[in-house]
């Protein structure tokens, strides 16, 4: 199939960017979206042009590196699918496809479609962990965890930290990301001692990083490739309310 892509090109963090149109000819419907960009890049290189920079790594939907807003939707049109798992068969011959980076102040563009997501690491640093230095652990069976809680914690823990929630949120908020970690750790008995400080500190870090506020619009959950539900934000809010009432 033959398509056109309009891609955001920005040579560096402080340069101005623009959408540039490229023709991609004879691409297989079985190619993934990133493979389509690979093919385009090979042509660009041989023509002496600068290839498109984009983040990607595992290409199997788990590392969370790939991050393209395709026709205005983070990770593109397929539900619960990362960009790397999106295939060209979901587009039609002759389509014009817009490709942009995640856009958020807390995710500044480094080059083209590559953004800096260090702010997510900062949120985790603030409290997204259970303090358990190596060697201090009791036997794994010392504390049983109800299956229901373990399963729910797992669901929340499947977040891949890609940032699509922020990219989609009209407020540029990272609430779903933070809520997923609060929920994962808050459901485990091991996570209880730090539960209050965790939610307070992570929310503070999130605000400090320049993310917007949450207004429960739900765009985040719509684009989340792992299907993290919006309801987790309610859990975070509840934890936060309880935590500040104690402090």
């Amino acid at each position, binding site marked *: 199939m033959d398509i056109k892509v309009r891609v955001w090109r920005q040579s560096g963090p402080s340069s101005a960017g623009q959408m540039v149109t490229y023709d991609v000819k004879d691409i297989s419907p*079985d*190619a*993934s979206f*990133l*493979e389509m960009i*690979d*093919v385009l890049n*090979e042509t660009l*290189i*041989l023509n*002496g042009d*600068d*290839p498109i*920079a984009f*983040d*990607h*790594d*595992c*290409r*199997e939907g*788990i*590392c*969370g*590196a790939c991050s393209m807003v395709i026709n205005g939707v983070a990770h593109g049109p*397929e539900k619960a*699918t990362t960009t790397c*798992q999106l295939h060209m*068969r979901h587009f039609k011959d002759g389509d014009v496809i817009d490709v942009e980076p995640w856009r958020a102040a807390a995710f500044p563009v480094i*080059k083209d479609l590559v953004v*800096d*997501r*260090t702010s997510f*690491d900062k949120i*985790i*640093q603030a409290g*997204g*962990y*259970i*303090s*358990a*230095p*190596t*060697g*201090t*652990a*009791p*036997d*794994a*069976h010392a*504390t*049983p965890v109800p*299956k229901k809680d*373990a*399963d729910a914690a*797992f669901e929340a*823990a*499947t977040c*891949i*930290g890609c940032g699509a929630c922020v990219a989609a949120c009209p407020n540029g908020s990272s609430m779903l990301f933070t809520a997923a970690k609060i929920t994962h750790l808050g459901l485990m008995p*091991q996570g209880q001692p730090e539960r209050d400080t965790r939610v307070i500190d992570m929310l503070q870090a999130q605000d400090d990083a320049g993310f917007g506020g949450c207004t429960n619009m739900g765009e985040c959950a719509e684009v989340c490739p792992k299907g993290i539900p919006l309801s987790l934000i309610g859990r975070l809010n509840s934890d936060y309310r309880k935590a500040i009432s104690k402090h």
Partner: protein
Amino acid sequence: MNDFWIEGEPVVDKAAPDGPVETRWERRKFAAKLVNPANRRKLTVIVVGTGLAGGSAAATLAEAGYRVKSYCYQDSPRRAHSIAAQGGINAAKNYRNDGDSVYRLFYDTVKGGDFRARESNVYRLAQVSVNIIDQCVAQGVPFAREYGGLLDNRSFGGTQVSRTFYARGQTGQQLLLGAYQAMERQIGLGNIEMNARHEMLELIIVDGKARGIVVRDMVTGEITTEFADAVVLASGGYGNVFFLSTNAKGCNVTASWRAHRKGALFANPCYTQIHPTCIPESGSHQSKLTLMSESLRNDGRVWVPKRAADCQKPAAEIAEEDRDYYLERIYPSFGNLVPRDIASRAAKNVCDEGRGVGPGGLGVYLDFADAIKRLGRKAVEAKYGNLFEMYERITGEDPYATPMRIYPAVHYTMGGLWVDYDLQSTIPGLFVIGEANFSDHGANRLGASALMQGLADGYFVLPNTINNYLAAGPFPSLSEQDAPVVEARKQVEDRIKKLLEINGDRTVDSFHRELGQIMWEYCGMERSEEGLTKAVGLIRALKEEFWTRVKVPGKGEELNQNLEKAGRVADFLELGELMCIDALHRRESCGGHFRAESQTPDGEALRHDDEFSYAAAWEYFGADGKPTLHKEELNFEYVHPSTRSYK
């Protein structure tokens, strides 16, 4: 002696204790020197890589009080490729009361490695496996549980006991996030200096000791020299030498190879694991391969058409009597559940006979029609629903209606930098952990053992053994002007300059693809003297072409993904040659290494313990010289070599 290598002195593991295997680790820990907690703050350790091994090591060393500097090429330590591991992690907890024990895990791992691993290391691995589970649970890793709230276990990879802990099909992700979070905690506390999007391009050796690395900031292109008292490589495996593999696109051998070029021995490079159940290539655009859990073979039946002429027909039009369920035919007792290497080779054989299906004839069917008939669609969906979805997402075919197509793909590399019992390489102060070293899996790795080894090394082994080395520190402080530092930096700068100046007419990827094809063809599932000899010639020619015709666009002082790739491919070209030479020298079949010349009359792998019961540790001898082979004899005091049989 021969055209390809020189035989040197044997290499000996001086750190390994002798005596009863059960107490070796205890005795080693006791004999190792300790570092006073107050002195640890004065000691800096560089850790390259943030996967299960690197992440857990960085966190643990920082908790112990060392100053840690961590580097990864990804934008966040959480994205290291350990995240993609699906199946699970083994531990000799014996929670099922099914007769498991440390000794049994040790036994299975030595045997599974086809008697090419060190007993001491494997025993230690089995011992600390139990601590890993405790540690991960304490960190909040949401392992699968039973209704009583206790941890669930499953049997994995053909073992007869249930010792595999798992978190649905995302065990690697959950374990890595545990290590990542522990690491982020230490970053927040200021004990780890994290440098994401930084690539190690050279090792700095001063007075014979590893004292630092040269790194490139992948965002700005700035080259800096980083100093420490010890350097830990946790940079993963080298499966991407095949271009198409289940590794992440960024996985590379550069950190290990730079160390190898500076004197670290590289052991058993030819031991690669090929996984039988991957989604086949769909065309020339293919950039990587995706693994599907081996558990599919529990209910799926593998077949190809009996006649090559039927291969173009849709599967549904091929009558039952025209199908060849070849695994069930050749291995009646194990059938579709034969080990990975056997299943992989059998698939290659039928495809070589022209009976493969799908694009390029590189695929075999994995059919669930019988399972759906027997168990009902609902039951199949409950067991494999997510895998079927993944398959459909990638191929656009519905596996409930048409059989899946699968083909083997490179998945893991057992070889790596040679290390002693302390996980120290032949360069003092350079430690190597996780998939990057060669130590525990021998010629073949068992399922659910990669995660175990990565975390064992990072949480429990290295943090104990590195003290013995660091006790002699802090070492004299270094400056940018020191000759070895200047030289290492210059090596990096010159190489980048050279890559950018060639400005030829072929892309980096085109070279990588071609190298991958050579490796897959001649150093893949089946290797022969003739093929390997040919491959060495082809790789040498390709290497020469690379250095004259590669086109790397852009500058060095910016984010330049092609420059990154070019440096990695240049190293893969050298590694590929060494892999072929290693495969050539090992005239036996063992584990992931199958030599066509060494098989039983029915086509099974044939080991030659009398000649090859050693680890082959190679010394670098210049890009165009011959590598030197140093043998480390393997002694089996507990598990005596026997022959596998799955008939």
